[in-house]
Protein backbone atom coordinates (compact mmCIF):
# COMPACT_ATOMS: atom_id res chain seq x y z
CA UNK A 1 0.00 0.00 0.00
CA UNK A 2 1.14 3.52 -0.59
CA UNK A 3 2.23 5.70 2.23
CA UNK A 4 3.56 9.20 2.44
CA UNK A 5 7.19 8.13 2.70
CA UNK A 6 9.63 9.79 0.35
CA UNK A 7 11.59 7.69 -2.08
CA UNK A 8 14.99 8.66 -0.69
CA UNK A 9 13.95 7.73 2.84
CA UNK A 10 12.48 4.48 1.58
CA UNK A 11 15.67 3.48 -0.20
CA UNK A 12 17.88 4.40 2.75
CA UNK A 13 15.65 2.32 4.93
CA UNK A 14 16.44 -0.58 2.64
CA UNK A 15 20.12 -0.02 3.39
CA UNK A 16 21.02 1.80 0.20
CA UNK A 17 23.77 4.35 0.77
CA UNK A 18 23.80 7.89 -0.62
CA UNK A 19 26.49 6.87 -3.07
CA UNK A 20 24.33 3.94 -4.12
CA UNK A 21 21.43 6.32 -4.55
CA UNK A 22 23.57 8.66 -6.63
CA UNK A 23 24.64 5.77 -8.81
CA UNK A 24 21.02 4.79 -9.18
CA UNK A 25 20.20 8.34 -10.26
CA UNK A 26 23.07 8.30 -12.73
CA UNK A 27 21.70 5.13 -14.25
CA UNK A 28 18.22 6.72 -14.33
CA UNK A 29 19.64 9.73 -16.15
CA UNK A 30 21.22 7.56 -18.77
CA UNK A 31 17.93 5.63 -19.01
CA UNK A 32 16.02 8.82 -19.67
CA UNK A 33 18.71 9.95 -22.07
CA UNK A 34 19.40 13.00 -19.91
CA UNK A 35 22.88 14.52 -19.65
CA UNK A 36 25.07 13.53 -16.71
CA UNK A 37 25.03 17.12 -15.48
CA UNK A 38 21.41 16.61 -14.47
CA UNK A 39 22.20 13.83 -12.00
CA UNK A 40 22.28 16.11 -8.92
CA UNK A 41 18.91 17.59 -9.87
CA UNK A 42 17.47 14.14 -10.43
CA UNK A 43 18.87 12.96 -7.11
CA UNK A 44 17.33 15.91 -5.31
CA UNK A 45 13.95 15.36 -6.95
CA UNK A 46 13.90 11.60 -6.45
CA UNK A 47 15.02 11.97 -2.85
CA UNK A 48 11.89 13.94 -2.09
CA UNK A 49 9.50 12.18 -4.46
CA UNK A 50 6.56 10.41 -2.88
CA UNK A 51 5.71 6.90 -3.94
CA UNK A 52 3.00 7.13 -6.52
CA UNK A 53 0.23 4.58 -6.50
CA UNK A 54 0.14 2.50 -9.65
CA UNK A 55 -2.68 0.35 -10.96
CA UNK A 56 -1.71 -2.01 -13.75
CA UNK A 57 -4.47 -3.46 -15.89
CA UNK A 58 -3.76 -6.33 -18.24
CA UNK A 59 -6.29 -6.69 -21.02
CA UNK A 60 -6.16 -8.69 -24.26
CA UNK A 61 -2.47 -9.53 -24.03
CA UNK A 62 0.10 -12.30 -23.75
CA UNK A 63 1.87 -11.14 -20.57
CA UNK A 64 5.01 -10.66 -22.67
CA UNK A 65 5.21 -7.02 -21.62
CA UNK A 66 5.15 -7.89 -17.93
CA UNK A 67 7.69 -10.63 -18.62
CA UNK A 68 9.89 -8.13 -20.39
CA UNK A 69 9.76 -5.80 -17.40
CA UNK A 70 10.32 -8.39 -14.68
CA UNK A 71 13.09 -10.21 -16.55
CA UNK A 72 15.15 -7.09 -16.92
CA UNK A 73 18.33 -5.96 -15.14
CA UNK A 74 16.97 -7.52 -11.99
CA UNK A 75 17.29 -7.14 -9.18
CA UNK A 76 18.63 -3.61 -8.92
CA UNK A 77 17.34 -1.02 -11.34
CA UNK A 78 13.88 -2.16 -12.28
CA UNK A 79 13.53 -3.75 -8.90
CA UNK A 80 14.19 -0.39 -7.30
CA UNK A 81 11.79 1.35 -9.60
CA UNK A 82 9.13 -1.22 -8.85
CA UNK A 83 9.85 -0.74 -5.16
CA UNK A 84 9.72 2.96 -5.61
CA UNK A 85 6.20 2.82 -6.92
CA UNK A 86 3.38 1.30 -5.02
CA UNK A 87 1.98 -1.33 -7.32
CA UNK A 88 -1.49 -1.56 -5.89
CA UNK A 89 -2.91 -3.86 -8.52
CA UNK A 90 -1.34 -6.13 -11.09
CA UNK A 91 -3.19 -9.36 -11.41
CA UNK A 92 -0.15 -11.32 -12.54
CA UNK A 93 2.38 -9.98 -10.07
CA UNK A 94 0.32 -9.39 -6.95
CA UNK A 95 -0.04 -12.05 -4.28
CA UNK A 96 -3.74 -11.51 -3.78
CA UNK A 97 -6.19 -12.96 -6.25
CA UNK A 98 -9.88 -13.12 -6.94
CA UNK A 99 -12.10 -10.86 -4.92
CA UNK A 100 -9.29 -9.69 -2.66
CA UNK A 101 -7.38 -8.43 -5.67
CA UNK A 102 -10.35 -6.60 -7.12
CA UNK A 103 -11.04 -5.11 -3.69
CA UNK A 104 -7.44 -3.83 -3.55
CA UNK A 105 -7.88 -2.22 -6.95
CA UNK A 106 -11.06 -0.51 -5.91
CA UNK A 107 -9.59 0.67 -2.64
CA UNK A 108 -6.56 2.16 -4.39
CA UNK A 109 -8.75 3.81 -7.00
CA UNK A 110 -10.78 5.47 -4.27
CA UNK A 111 -7.91 6.44 -1.99
CA UNK A 112 -5.73 7.94 -4.71
CA UNK A 113 -8.48 9.24 -6.96
CA UNK A 114 -7.03 11.72 -9.43
CA UNK A 115 -3.47 10.83 -8.44
CA UNK A 116 -2.71 7.26 -9.41
CA UNK A 117 -0.84 6.20 -12.49
CA UNK A 118 -2.73 3.74 -14.65
CA UNK A 119 -0.65 1.29 -16.64
CA UNK A 120 -2.37 -0.76 -19.30
CA UNK A 121 -1.01 -3.61 -21.35
CA UNK A 122 -3.04 -5.40 -23.98
CA UNK A 123 -5.65 -4.11 -26.39
CA UNK A 124 -9.32 -3.66 -25.60
CA UNK A 125 -11.88 -5.71 -27.54
CA UNK A 126 -14.94 -3.62 -28.31
CA UNK A 127 -17.02 -5.91 -30.50
CA UNK A 128 -20.26 -7.33 -29.07
CA UNK A 129 -20.07 -5.11 -26.01
CA UNK A 130 -16.51 -6.14 -25.22
CA UNK A 131 -17.37 -9.70 -24.16
CA UNK A 132 -14.19 -11.17 -25.61
CA UNK A 133 -12.05 -10.30 -22.61
CA UNK A 134 -13.25 -9.89 -19.06
CA UNK A 135 -11.73 -9.78 -15.59
CA UNK A 136 -13.87 -10.86 -12.66
CA UNK A 137 -16.90 -10.60 -14.91
CA UNK A 138 -16.18 -7.01 -15.90
CA UNK A 139 -15.35 -6.34 -19.54
CA UNK A 140 -11.99 -4.72 -20.28
CA UNK A 141 -13.85 -1.87 -21.89
CA UNK A 142 -15.83 -1.07 -18.74
CA UNK A 143 -12.84 -1.55 -16.47
CA UNK A 144 -10.73 0.83 -18.54
CA UNK A 145 -13.43 3.50 -18.49
CA UNK A 146 -13.80 3.17 -14.75
CA UNK A 147 -10.09 3.08 -13.93
CA UNK A 148 -9.26 5.93 -16.30
CA UNK A 149 -11.60 8.30 -14.49
CA UNK A 150 -9.37 8.74 -11.45
CA UNK A 151 -6.02 8.36 -13.22
CA UNK A 152 -3.52 11.21 -13.31
CA UNK A 153 -2.11 9.72 -16.48
CA UNK A 154 -2.18 6.47 -18.41
CA UNK A 155 0.81 4.56 -19.65
CA UNK A 156 -0.06 2.20 -22.50
CA UNK A 157 2.64 -0.43 -22.32
CA UNK A 158 3.25 -2.52 -25.41
CA UNK A 159 2.08 -2.16 -28.99
CA UNK A 160 -1.28 -3.80 -28.19
CA UNK A 161 -2.24 -1.14 -25.66
CA UNK A 162 -0.58 1.62 -27.66
CA UNK A 163 -1.81 0.82 -31.18
CA UNK A 164 -3.95 -2.32 -31.02
CA UNK A 165 -1.11 -4.72 -31.83
CA UNK A 166 -1.69 -8.34 -32.73
CA UNK A 167 -5.36 -8.53 -31.69
CA UNK A 168 -6.03 -5.50 -33.90
CA UNK A 169 -4.41 -7.15 -36.94
CA UNK A 170 -6.53 -8.04 -39.92
CA UNK A 171 -9.30 -9.31 -39.65
CA UNK A 172 -9.48 -8.20 -36.02
CA UNK A 173 -12.23 -10.60 -34.92
CA UNK A 174 -12.72 -9.01 -31.49
CA UNK A 175 -12.80 -5.39 -32.62
CA UNK A 176 -9.65 -4.72 -30.61
CA UNK A 177 -8.52 -1.11 -30.25
CA UNK A 178 -5.81 0.86 -28.46
CA UNK A 179 -6.27 2.70 -25.16
CA UNK A 180 -6.12 6.03 -26.97
CA UNK A 181 -9.06 4.99 -29.15
CA UNK A 182 -11.23 4.83 -26.07
CA UNK A 183 -9.87 7.32 -23.56
CA UNK A 184 -9.53 10.83 -24.91
CA UNK A 185 -9.55 13.08 -21.88
CA UNK A 186 -6.42 11.85 -20.08
CA UNK A 187 -2.74 12.19 -20.91
CA UNK A 188 -1.61 8.90 -22.45
CA UNK A 189 1.98 7.79 -22.92
CA UNK A 190 2.44 5.06 -25.49
CA UNK A 191 5.36 2.79 -24.68
CA UNK A 192 5.14 0.68 -27.80
CA UNK A 193 7.08 -2.40 -28.76
CA UNK A 194 6.29 -6.08 -28.87
CA UNK A 195 7.41 -6.19 -26.13
CA UNK A 196 8.79 -2.76 -25.25
CA UNK A 197 12.39 -2.60 -24.11
CA UNK A 198 12.22 -3.03 -20.33
CA UNK A 199 14.38 -0.03 -19.54
CA UNK A 200 12.06 2.09 -21.64
CA UNK A 201 9.16 1.13 -19.38
CA UNK A 202 11.21 1.92 -16.31
CA UNK A 203 12.64 5.02 -17.92
CA UNK A 204 9.14 6.42 -18.31
CA UNK A 205 8.30 5.53 -14.71
CA UNK A 206 11.58 7.10 -13.59
CA UNK A 207 10.74 10.27 -15.45
CA UNK A 208 7.35 10.42 -13.84
CA UNK A 209 8.86 9.81 -10.42
CA UNK A 210 11.56 12.41 -10.91
CA UNK A 211 9.65 15.24 -12.45
CA UNK A 212 6.08 14.35 -11.62
CA UNK A 213 5.29 15.12 -15.24
CA UNK A 214 5.08 13.17 -18.47
CA UNK A 215 8.08 13.10 -20.76
CA UNK A 216 7.99 14.88 -24.11
CA UNK A 217 5.99 12.80 -26.60
CA UNK A 218 6.05 12.36 -30.36
CA UNK A 219 2.93 12.58 -32.53
CA UNK A 220 2.07 8.97 -31.72
CA UNK A 221 2.27 9.67 -27.99
CA UNK A 222 5.62 7.95 -27.50
CA UNK A 223 8.36 9.45 -25.32
CA UNK A 224 10.82 11.18 -27.61
CA UNK A 225 13.79 10.22 -25.48
CA UNK A 226 13.36 6.62 -26.59
CA UNK A 227 11.37 6.84 -29.80
CA UNK A 228 12.90 10.01 -31.21
CA UNK A 229 15.09 8.22 -33.71
CA UNK A 230 14.58 5.31 -36.03
CA UNK A 231 16.40 2.01 -35.77
CA UNK A 232 17.97 2.86 -39.13
CA UNK A 233 19.24 6.24 -37.84
CA UNK A 234 21.20 4.50 -35.14
CA UNK A 235 21.98 1.22 -36.84
CA UNK A 236 25.63 0.21 -36.94
CA UNK A 237 25.00 -1.41 -40.35
CA UNK A 238 24.01 1.94 -41.78
CA UNK A 239 27.33 2.53 -43.58
CA UNK A 240 26.61 -0.58 -45.66
CA UNK A 241 23.15 0.69 -46.49
CA UNK A 242 24.70 3.92 -47.71
CA UNK A 243 27.26 2.06 -49.78
CA UNK A 244 24.59 -0.18 -51.28
CA UNK A 245 26.01 -3.36 -49.76
CA UNK A 246 23.16 -5.70 -48.92
CA UNK A 247 22.86 -9.24 -47.67
CA UNK A 248 20.66 -11.15 -50.14
CA UNK A 249 20.04 -14.21 -48.00
CA UNK A 250 20.58 -14.97 -44.34
CA UNK A 251 23.65 -17.07 -45.01
CA UNK A 252 25.43 -15.48 -47.97
CA UNK A 253 28.72 -13.68 -47.89
CA UNK A 254 27.03 -10.33 -47.33
CA UNK A 255 25.25 -11.70 -44.28
CA UNK A 256 28.51 -13.03 -42.91
CA UNK A 257 30.16 -9.66 -43.52
CA UNK A 258 27.44 -7.92 -41.55
CA UNK A 259 25.99 -5.99 -44.49
CA UNK A 260 22.68 -4.17 -44.38
CA UNK A 261 19.52 -6.27 -44.06
CA UNK A 262 17.22 -3.97 -46.04
CA UNK A 263 16.65 -6.45 -48.84
CA UNK A 264 15.85 -9.16 -46.31
CA UNK A 265 12.96 -7.09 -45.09
CA UNK A 266 14.46 -4.85 -42.39
CA UNK A 267 11.87 -2.24 -41.35
CA UNK A 268 14.45 -0.20 -39.44
CA UNK A 269 14.03 2.92 -41.61
CA UNK A 270 10.41 3.43 -40.57
CA UNK A 271 10.62 2.06 -37.05
CA UNK A 272 11.14 4.38 -34.14
CA UNK A 273 12.53 2.65 -31.08
CA UNK A 274 15.63 2.53 -28.90
CA UNK A 275 16.78 -1.02 -29.77
CA UNK A 276 19.87 0.06 -31.69
CA UNK A 277 21.25 1.98 -28.72
CA UNK A 278 19.66 0.61 -25.57
CA UNK A 279 19.71 -2.95 -26.86
CA UNK A 280 18.16 -6.05 -25.37
CA UNK A 281 19.05 -8.57 -22.68
CA UNK A 282 21.00 -6.28 -20.41
CA UNK A 283 22.48 -4.42 -23.32
CA UNK A 284 23.83 -7.56 -24.99
CA UNK A 285 22.68 -6.89 -28.54
CA UNK A 286 19.60 -6.26 -30.65
CA UNK A 287 17.95 -8.17 -33.50
CA UNK A 288 19.93 -6.57 -36.31
CA UNK A 289 23.13 -7.32 -34.43
CA UNK A 290 22.23 -10.99 -34.46
CA UNK A 291 21.51 -10.91 -38.18
CA UNK A 292 17.77 -10.44 -38.39
CA UNK A 293 16.05 -7.37 -39.78
CA UNK A 294 13.82 -5.16 -37.67
CA UNK A 295 10.15 -6.21 -37.75
CA UNK A 296 8.89 -2.73 -36.97
CA UNK A 297 7.23 -3.90 -33.76
CA UNK A 298 6.92 -0.45 -32.20
CA UNK A 299 4.88 0.99 -35.07
CA UNK A 300 1.12 0.91 -35.61
CA UNK A 301 -0.23 -1.94 -37.75
CA UNK A 302 3.10 -3.70 -37.99
CA UNK A 303 1.39 -7.06 -38.35
CA UNK A 304 -0.41 -5.84 -41.44
CA UNK A 305 2.63 -4.24 -43.05
CA UNK A 306 3.33 -7.10 -45.44
CA UNK A 307 5.90 -9.84 -45.07
CA UNK A 308 8.61 -9.42 -42.45
CA UNK A 309 11.03 -10.67 -45.11
CA UNK A 310 10.19 -8.36 -48.00
CA UNK A 311 11.90 -5.02 -48.45
CA UNK A 312 10.19 -1.89 -47.23
CA UNK A 313 9.96 -0.56 -50.77
CA UNK A 314 7.88 -3.46 -52.04
CA UNK A 315 4.07 -3.70 -52.17
CA UNK A 316 2.39 -5.22 -49.15
CA UNK A 317 -0.25 -6.93 -51.27
CA UNK A 318 0.44 -8.97 -54.41
CA UNK A 319 -0.07 -6.86 -57.52
CA UNK A 320 -0.28 -9.64 -60.10
CA UNK A 321 -4.04 -10.02 -60.07
CA UNK A 322 -4.74 -6.32 -60.16
CA UNK A 323 -2.34 -6.00 -63.07
CA UNK A 324 -4.03 -8.83 -64.93
CA UNK A 325 -7.48 -7.36 -64.37
CA UNK A 326 -6.23 -3.97 -65.50
CA UNK A 327 -4.65 -5.45 -68.60
CA UNK A 328 -7.88 -7.24 -69.47
CA UNK A 329 -9.89 -4.07 -68.93
CA UNK A 330 -7.42 -2.07 -71.02
CA UNK A 331 -7.55 -4.57 -73.86
CA UNK A 332 -11.33 -4.79 -73.87
CA UNK A 333 -11.69 -1.02 -73.67
CA UNK A 334 -9.03 -0.57 -76.33
CA UNK A 335 -10.71 -3.09 -78.60
CA UNK A 336 -13.98 -1.23 -78.20
CA UNK A 337 -12.33 2.02 -79.18
CA UNK A 338 -10.62 0.32 -82.11
CA UNK A 339 -13.94 -1.08 -83.32
CA UNK A 340 -15.50 2.31 -83.02
CA UNK A 341 -12.64 3.90 -84.96
CA UNK A 342 -12.93 1.31 -87.71
CA UNK A 343 -16.60 1.91 -87.85
CA UNK A 344 -16.09 5.63 -88.26
CA UNK A 345 -13.50 5.04 -90.94
CA UNK A 346 -15.63 2.54 -92.79
CA UNK A 347 -18.54 4.94 -92.70
CA UNK A 348 -16.32 7.68 -94.03
CA UNK A 349 -15.08 5.44 -96.81
CA UNK A 350 -18.51 4.32 -97.87
CA UNK A 351 -19.76 7.88 -97.70
CA UNK A 352 -16.89 8.96 -99.90
CA UNK A 353 -17.84 10.47 -103.25
CA UNK A 354 -15.39 11.12 -106.02
CA UNK A 355 -15.33 14.66 -107.12
CA UNK A 356 -14.04 15.96 -110.43
CA UNK A 357 -12.89 19.43 -111.29
CA UNK A 358 -16.06 19.90 -113.27
CA UNK A 359 -18.14 19.09 -110.22
CA UNK A 360 -16.27 21.65 -108.19
CA UNK A 361 -16.63 24.32 -110.83
CA UNK A 362 -20.27 23.55 -111.06
CA UNK A 363 -20.64 23.75 -107.31
CA UNK A 364 -18.86 27.07 -107.11
CA UNK A 365 -20.94 28.31 -110.02
CA UNK A 366 -24.11 27.40 -108.18
CA UNK A 367 -23.18 29.28 -105.08
CA UNK A 368 -22.40 32.41 -107.06
Amino acid at each position, binding site marked *: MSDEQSLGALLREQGISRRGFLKFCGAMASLMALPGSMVPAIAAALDKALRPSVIWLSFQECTGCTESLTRSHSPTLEGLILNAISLDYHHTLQAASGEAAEAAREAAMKQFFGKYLLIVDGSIPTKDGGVYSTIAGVSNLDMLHEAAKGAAAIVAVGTCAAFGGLPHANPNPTGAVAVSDIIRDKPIINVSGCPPIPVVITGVLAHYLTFGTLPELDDLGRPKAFYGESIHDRCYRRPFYDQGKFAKTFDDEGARNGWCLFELGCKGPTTFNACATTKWNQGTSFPIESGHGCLGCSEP*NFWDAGSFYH*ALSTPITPVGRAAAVAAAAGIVG*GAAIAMHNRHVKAAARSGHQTVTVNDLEQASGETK
Partner: protein
Amino acid sequence: MNDMALLLWARGPGLQIALVVFIAGMLLKLFEIFSLGRKKDLSTPRPGKAWSGLKTIFSRSLPDKTLLKRSFPTYLMGYTFHIGFFIALLFLAPHIELFRNTTGLGWPALPGALVDGISLLTIVALLLMLGYRLYHPVKRFLSTFDDYASWALTMAPLLSGYLAFHHLLLPYTQMLALHILSVELLLVCMPFTKLFHTVSLFISRWYNGDALGHKGARL
Protein backbone atom coordinates in the same frame (compact mmCIF):
# COMPACT_ATOMS: atom_id res chain seq x y z
CA MET B 1 -4.50 8.75 -40.25
CA ASN B 2 -1.00 8.35 -38.87
CA ASP B 3 2.16 8.22 -40.95
CA MET B 4 2.42 4.47 -40.81
CA ALA B 5 -1.20 3.98 -41.90
CA LEU B 6 -0.57 6.33 -44.82
CA LEU B 7 2.54 4.40 -45.79
CA LEU B 8 0.71 1.10 -45.59
CA TRP B 9 -2.10 2.48 -47.71
CA ALA B 10 0.42 3.64 -50.28
CA ARG B 11 2.16 0.25 -50.32
CA GLY B 12 -1.15 -1.60 -50.48
CA PRO B 13 -4.47 -0.35 -51.86
CA GLY B 14 -2.96 2.86 -53.25
CA LEU B 15 -0.52 0.94 -55.39
CA GLN B 16 -3.24 -1.43 -56.58
CA ILE B 17 -5.44 1.43 -57.71
CA ALA B 18 -2.57 3.23 -59.40
CA LEU B 19 -1.44 0.13 -61.24
CA VAL B 20 -4.92 -0.67 -62.46
CA VAL B 21 -5.43 2.83 -63.83
CA PHE B 22 -1.95 2.88 -65.31
CA ILE B 23 -2.06 -0.46 -67.09
CA ALA B 24 -5.62 -0.11 -68.31
CA GLY B 25 -5.02 3.49 -69.40
CA MET B 26 -1.82 2.71 -71.25
CA LEU B 27 -3.35 -0.21 -73.13
CA LEU B 28 -6.41 1.79 -73.97
CA LYS B 29 -4.29 4.57 -75.40
CA LEU B 30 -2.11 2.20 -77.38
CA PHE B 31 -5.10 0.46 -78.87
CA GLU B 32 -6.55 3.78 -79.74
CA ILE B 33 -3.39 4.86 -81.54
CA PHE B 34 -2.83 1.63 -83.39
CA SER B 35 -6.42 1.29 -84.44
CA LEU B 36 -6.24 4.67 -86.15
CA GLY B 37 -4.26 2.99 -88.89
CA ARG B 38 -2.51 4.75 -91.74
CA LYS B 39 -3.25 5.01 -95.37
CA LYS B 40 -1.43 2.56 -97.50
CA ASP B 41 1.51 4.11 -99.32
CA LEU B 42 1.17 2.88 -102.87
CA SER B 43 4.51 4.18 -104.11
CA THR B 44 7.47 1.78 -104.41
CA PRO B 45 9.75 1.96 -101.35
CA ARG B 46 13.32 3.16 -102.01
CA PRO B 47 16.18 0.76 -101.35
CA GLY B 48 17.41 0.55 -97.75
CA LYS B 49 14.03 1.16 -96.26
CA ALA B 50 13.87 -2.08 -94.29
CA TRP B 51 15.45 -0.94 -90.99
CA SER B 52 14.74 2.76 -91.21
CA GLY B 53 11.93 2.66 -88.63
CA LEU B 54 13.96 0.75 -86.07
CA LYS B 55 17.05 2.82 -86.76
CA THR B 56 15.22 6.05 -86.17
CA ILE B 57 14.01 4.91 -82.76
CA PHE B 58 17.65 4.98 -81.68
CA SER B 59 19.11 7.66 -83.91
CA ARG B 60 16.63 10.27 -82.71
CA SER B 61 18.03 9.86 -79.21
CA LEU B 62 21.16 11.59 -80.44
CA PRO B 63 21.10 15.34 -80.89
CA ASP B 64 20.85 16.89 -84.29
CA LYS B 65 23.89 19.11 -84.85
CA THR B 66 22.09 22.22 -86.00
CA LEU B 67 19.41 21.98 -83.35
CA LEU B 68 22.00 21.27 -80.69
CA LYS B 69 23.76 24.51 -81.52
CA ARG B 70 20.54 26.48 -81.69
CA SER B 71 19.06 25.38 -78.38
CA PHE B 72 21.92 24.04 -76.38
CA PRO B 73 20.42 24.64 -72.90
CA THR B 74 17.30 22.67 -73.77
CA TYR B 75 19.42 19.76 -74.90
CA LEU B 76 21.78 19.87 -71.96
CA MET B 77 19.04 20.02 -69.36
CA GLY B 78 16.90 17.53 -71.20
CA TYR B 79 19.65 14.95 -71.34
CA THR B 80 20.69 15.52 -67.74
CA PHE B 81 17.14 15.12 -66.57
CA HIS B 82 16.27 12.04 -68.60
CA ILE B 83 19.46 10.13 -67.87
CA GLY B 84 19.44 11.14 -64.21
CA PHE B 85 15.83 10.18 -63.79
CA PHE B 86 16.40 6.71 -65.16
CA ILE B 87 19.51 6.14 -63.08
CA ALA B 88 17.60 7.12 -59.92
CA LEU B 89 14.66 4.99 -60.95
CA LEU B 90 16.61 1.90 -61.95
CA PHE B 91 19.73 1.83 -59.83
CA LEU B 92 18.74 2.75 -56.29
CA ALA B 93 18.72 -0.42 -54.22
CA PRO B 94 15.19 -0.04 -52.76
CA HIS B 95 13.84 0.52 -56.28
CA ILE B 96 15.54 -2.58 -57.62
CA GLU B 97 14.04 -4.49 -54.71
CA LEU B 98 10.62 -3.30 -55.87
CA PHE B 99 11.23 -4.58 -59.40
CA ARG B 100 12.60 -7.85 -58.10
CA ASN B 101 9.58 -8.31 -55.89
CA THR B 102 7.01 -7.54 -58.55
CA THR B 103 8.64 -8.90 -61.70
CA GLY B 104 11.28 -11.31 -60.46
CA LEU B 105 13.98 -9.37 -62.32
CA GLY B 106 16.88 -7.84 -60.43
CA TRP B 107 20.24 -6.28 -61.13
CA PRO B 108 23.08 -4.77 -59.09
CA ALA B 109 22.54 -1.39 -57.46
CA LEU B 110 24.76 1.68 -57.59
CA PRO B 111 26.07 3.13 -54.30
CA GLY B 112 23.48 5.27 -52.57
CA ALA B 113 25.77 8.30 -52.52
CA LEU B 114 26.23 8.21 -56.29
CA VAL B 115 22.52 7.92 -57.00
CA ASP B 116 21.99 10.69 -54.48
CA GLY B 117 24.33 13.06 -56.32
CA ILE B 118 22.74 12.25 -59.66
CA SER B 119 19.26 12.82 -58.26
CA LEU B 120 20.28 16.25 -57.06
CA LEU B 121 21.62 17.09 -60.52
CA THR B 122 18.38 15.84 -62.02
CA ILE B 123 16.32 18.02 -59.71
CA VAL B 124 18.44 21.04 -60.58
CA ALA B 125 18.03 20.30 -64.30
CA LEU B 126 14.27 20.07 -63.90
CA LEU B 127 14.16 23.36 -62.03
CA LEU B 128 16.25 25.06 -64.71
CA MET B 129 13.96 23.63 -67.37
CA LEU B 130 10.95 25.18 -65.69
CA GLY B 131 12.79 28.48 -65.32
CA TYR B 132 13.78 28.42 -68.98
CA ARG B 133 10.24 27.58 -70.05
CA LEU B 134 8.92 30.56 -68.13
CA TYR B 135 11.71 32.87 -69.27
CA HIS B 136 11.77 32.03 -72.96
CA PRO B 137 8.87 33.85 -74.70
CA VAL B 138 8.36 31.22 -77.39
CA LYS B 139 8.47 28.34 -74.95
CA ARG B 140 6.13 30.16 -72.62
CA PHE B 141 3.73 30.81 -75.47
CA LEU B 142 3.72 27.18 -76.48
CA SER B 143 3.27 25.84 -72.95
CA THR B 144 -0.06 24.49 -71.88
CA PHE B 145 -1.43 23.24 -68.61
CA ASP B 146 -0.32 19.75 -69.60
CA ASP B 147 3.30 20.89 -69.72
CA TYR B 148 3.26 22.35 -66.25
CA ALA B 149 1.27 19.46 -64.82
CA SER B 150 3.69 16.95 -66.32
CA TRP B 151 6.59 18.89 -64.89
CA ALA B 152 5.06 18.83 -61.41
CA LEU B 153 4.14 15.17 -61.65
CA THR B 154 7.73 14.31 -62.53
CA MET B 155 9.28 16.61 -59.98
CA ALA B 156 7.22 15.31 -57.06
CA PRO B 157 8.70 11.78 -56.85
CA LEU B 158 12.22 13.09 -57.40
CA LEU B 159 11.98 15.75 -54.74
CA SER B 160 10.15 13.61 -52.18
CA GLY B 161 12.56 10.76 -52.80
CA TYR B 162 15.51 13.06 -52.27
CA LEU B 163 14.04 14.53 -49.09
CA ALA B 164 13.15 11.07 -47.79
CA PHE B 165 16.64 9.76 -48.51
CA HIS B 166 18.11 12.57 -46.42
CA HIS B 167 15.43 12.55 -43.73
CA LEU B 168 14.67 16.18 -44.43
CA LEU B 169 11.61 18.35 -43.79
CA LEU B 170 9.18 15.63 -42.66
CA PRO B 171 9.52 12.46 -40.60
CA TYR B 172 10.95 9.71 -42.79
CA THR B 173 7.86 7.50 -42.65
CA GLN B 174 5.65 10.35 -43.82
CA MET B 175 8.05 11.44 -46.54
CA LEU B 176 8.39 7.88 -47.79
CA ALA B 177 4.60 7.59 -47.93
CA LEU B 178 4.42 10.86 -49.89
CA HIS B 179 7.16 9.64 -52.20
CA ILE B 180 5.29 6.44 -53.01
CA LEU B 181 2.02 8.34 -53.38
CA SER B 182 3.63 10.80 -55.77
CA VAL B 183 4.84 7.92 -57.92
CA GLU B 184 1.35 6.48 -57.87
CA LEU B 185 -0.05 9.81 -58.99
CA LEU B 186 2.50 9.85 -61.79
CA LEU B 187 1.38 6.38 -62.86
CA VAL B 188 -2.27 7.36 -62.80
CA CYS B 189 -1.67 10.46 -64.90
CA MET B 190 0.83 8.99 -67.31
CA PRO B 191 -1.64 7.67 -69.92
CA PHE B 192 -3.57 10.94 -69.97
CA THR B 193 -0.87 13.59 -70.13
CA LYS B 194 2.07 14.24 -72.39
CA LEU B 195 3.96 11.86 -70.12
CA PHE B 196 2.52 9.21 -72.42
CA HIS B 197 5.52 10.05 -74.60
CA THR B 198 7.47 7.48 -72.55
CA VAL B 199 5.76 4.93 -74.81
CA SER B 200 4.45 6.84 -77.77
CA LEU B 201 7.87 8.18 -78.68
CA PHE B 202 8.85 4.75 -79.93
CA ILE B 203 5.75 4.55 -82.09
CA SER B 204 6.14 7.96 -83.61
CA ARG B 205 9.85 7.57 -84.22
CA TRP B 206 9.31 4.27 -85.90
CA TYR B 207 6.54 5.72 -88.02
CA ASN B 208 8.53 8.78 -89.03
CA GLY B 209 11.61 6.74 -89.78
CA ASP B 210 9.65 4.25 -91.78
CA ALA B 211 7.90 6.94 -93.80
CA LEU B 212 11.13 8.79 -94.48
CA GLY B 213 12.89 5.56 -95.41
CA HIS B 214 10.12 4.82 -97.82
CA LYS B 215 10.87 8.07 -99.57
CA GLY B 216 14.58 7.33 -99.51
CA ALA B 217 15.54 10.20 -97.21
CA ARG B 218 18.91 10.04 -95.50
CA LEU B 219 18.37 9.33 -91.82
